[in-house]
């Protein structure tokens, strides 16, 4: 319901004021969280004036509440306390002032604080700000180490000394920031972003000594968490002691339990690295020497094999083989000859035995006709036929006179 006004028909102040009041009322009652900056409670006034400051931004808003409500607070409201109000914005037309009228003020107690922290953690976790895959590895040997800490604090000393002991040549870029109190979160954010922009810085450490939950509250601040989430440089959170774990630990790339631990994480122990290097080199050499020895042994074994080392064995083997074969050949031949000789002898004897010579020598003679056929029967032999008679030492030629058969001789066979 924008108002129709123009140069010719301007709206009166009261009309504008009422319009503003109407718009302001449309916000309605809200729960708002902040830090009490000032409290002015004047005797005789039944309203107490407060200033509520935003936890991070430089924004504050006046708050009014009834004195009875203010006095009834337990623990009493003090400056710097974190509170949650249930308030309705009200526009005081007479003087054109806007303030929140608080109907309920809740102290942010420790349990309440932790509960709210947990809710905030779940909220941010749901947004994926703590996702594991976002974690960046720390550089092994950072060019410059960015450090956000309180000026000349124990944390600063721990980080610097430990880092330098491990690697004397480490370069630091320190950005001081309040590590406690209302300004802390915003200063830390500013320092972290400055280091993030710094070209040389390759890792940022946010280091703070131990403290109460309230002291460490700035390190669970939502704006800080979102800022750390956005930066590119890997960040190490080293807040408080081992048990302390502000939300910064969850969004950081690496959580160190203490500042000293952070120094160990960001800087390698150069002495140790050199020892590792030397050992690696020795092992490499050992391996190679081992390999060489094995191959040499293998080669020596091969070369010592008779086939290579002593070729004569090759020739000898063949010569022996040949000799062997020759002897066997000879033996076989000998046997064969002997057998042959025996055989001949045997045949000879048999021949001789069968040959008529011996018979002839014993006085027998073989009669043959003119054609040389042996005559074994009188039949067929006529008188005056030319015959030859074979006697042991020669042949007698003769002519038959007559033949005379004898009984019982002709039917048996004569071997011949």
């Amino acid at each position: 319901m924008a108002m129709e006004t123009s140069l010719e028909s301007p709206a009166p102040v009261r009309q504008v004021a009422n319009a503003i009041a109407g718009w302001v009322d449309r916000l309605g009652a809200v729960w708002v969280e902040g830090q009490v900056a000032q409290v002015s409670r004047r005797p005789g006034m039944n309203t107490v004036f407060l200033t509520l400051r935003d936890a991070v931004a430089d924004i504050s808003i006046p708050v009014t509440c009834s004195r009875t409500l203010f006095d009834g607070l337990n623990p009493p409201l003090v400056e710097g306390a974190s509170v949650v109000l249930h308030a309705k914005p009200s526009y005081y037309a007479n003087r054109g002032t806007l303030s929140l009228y608080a109907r309920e003020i809740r102290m942010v107690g420790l349990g309440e604080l932790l509960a709210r922290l947990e809710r905030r953690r779940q909220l941010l976790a749901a947004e994926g700000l703590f996702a594991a895959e976002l974690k960046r590895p720390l550089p092994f040997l950072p060019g410059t180490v960015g450090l956000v800490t309180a000026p000349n604090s124990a944390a600063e000393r721990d980080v610097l000394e430990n880092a330098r002991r491990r690697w004397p040549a480490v370069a630091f870029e320190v950005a001081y920031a309040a590590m406690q109190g209302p300004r802390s979160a915003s200063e830390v954010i500013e320092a972290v972003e400055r280091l993030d922009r710094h070209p040389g810085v390759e890792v940022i450490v946010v280091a703070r000594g131990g403290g109460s939950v309230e002291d460490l509250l700035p390190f669970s601040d939502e704006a800080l968490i979102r800022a750390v989430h956005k930066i590119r440089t890997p960040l190490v959170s080293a807040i408080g002691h081992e048990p302390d774990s502000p939300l910064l630990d969850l969004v950081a790339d690496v959580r160190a339990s203490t500042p000293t631990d952070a120094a160990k994480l960001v800087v390698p122990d150069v002495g140790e690295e050199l020892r590792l290097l030397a050992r690696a080199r020795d092992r490499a050499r050992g391996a190679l020497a081992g390999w060489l020895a094995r191959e040499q042994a293998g080669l020596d074994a091969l070369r010592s094999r008779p086939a290579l080392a002593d070729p004569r064995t090759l020739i000898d083997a063949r010569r022996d083989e040949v000799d062997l074969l020759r002897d066997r050949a000879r033996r076989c031949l000998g046997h064969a000859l002997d057998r042959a000789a025996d055989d001949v002898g045997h045949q000879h004897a048999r021949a001789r035995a069968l040959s008529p010579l011996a018979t002839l020598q014993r006085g027998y003679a073989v009669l043959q006709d003119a054609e040389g056929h042996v005559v074994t029967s009188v039949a067929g032999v006529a008188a005056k036929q030319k015959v030859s008679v074979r006697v042991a030492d020669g042949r007698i030629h003769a002519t038959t006179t007559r033949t005379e058969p004898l009984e019982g001789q002709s039917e048996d066979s004569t071997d011949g």
Partner: protein
Amino acid sequence: MAEKKTAEDKPSYEAAREELVEVVRRLEAGGTTLEESLALWERGEVLATICQDWLDGARARLDAAIEGDDES
């Protein structure tokens, strides 16, 4: 007898060693003609020398690296 081989056609250590093992195996298996055996044996000698050259070279480079290290 091992004629000087130029670097390119010199077989690699593994190749030479592989062939050497094969030569010895065939020689020991026998059944090769005399002529073949002689040829095999000569080849064996050449291969053995090549392998030895490779190993000596590697040994020398390793020793050089170690000396280089001791001096620095």
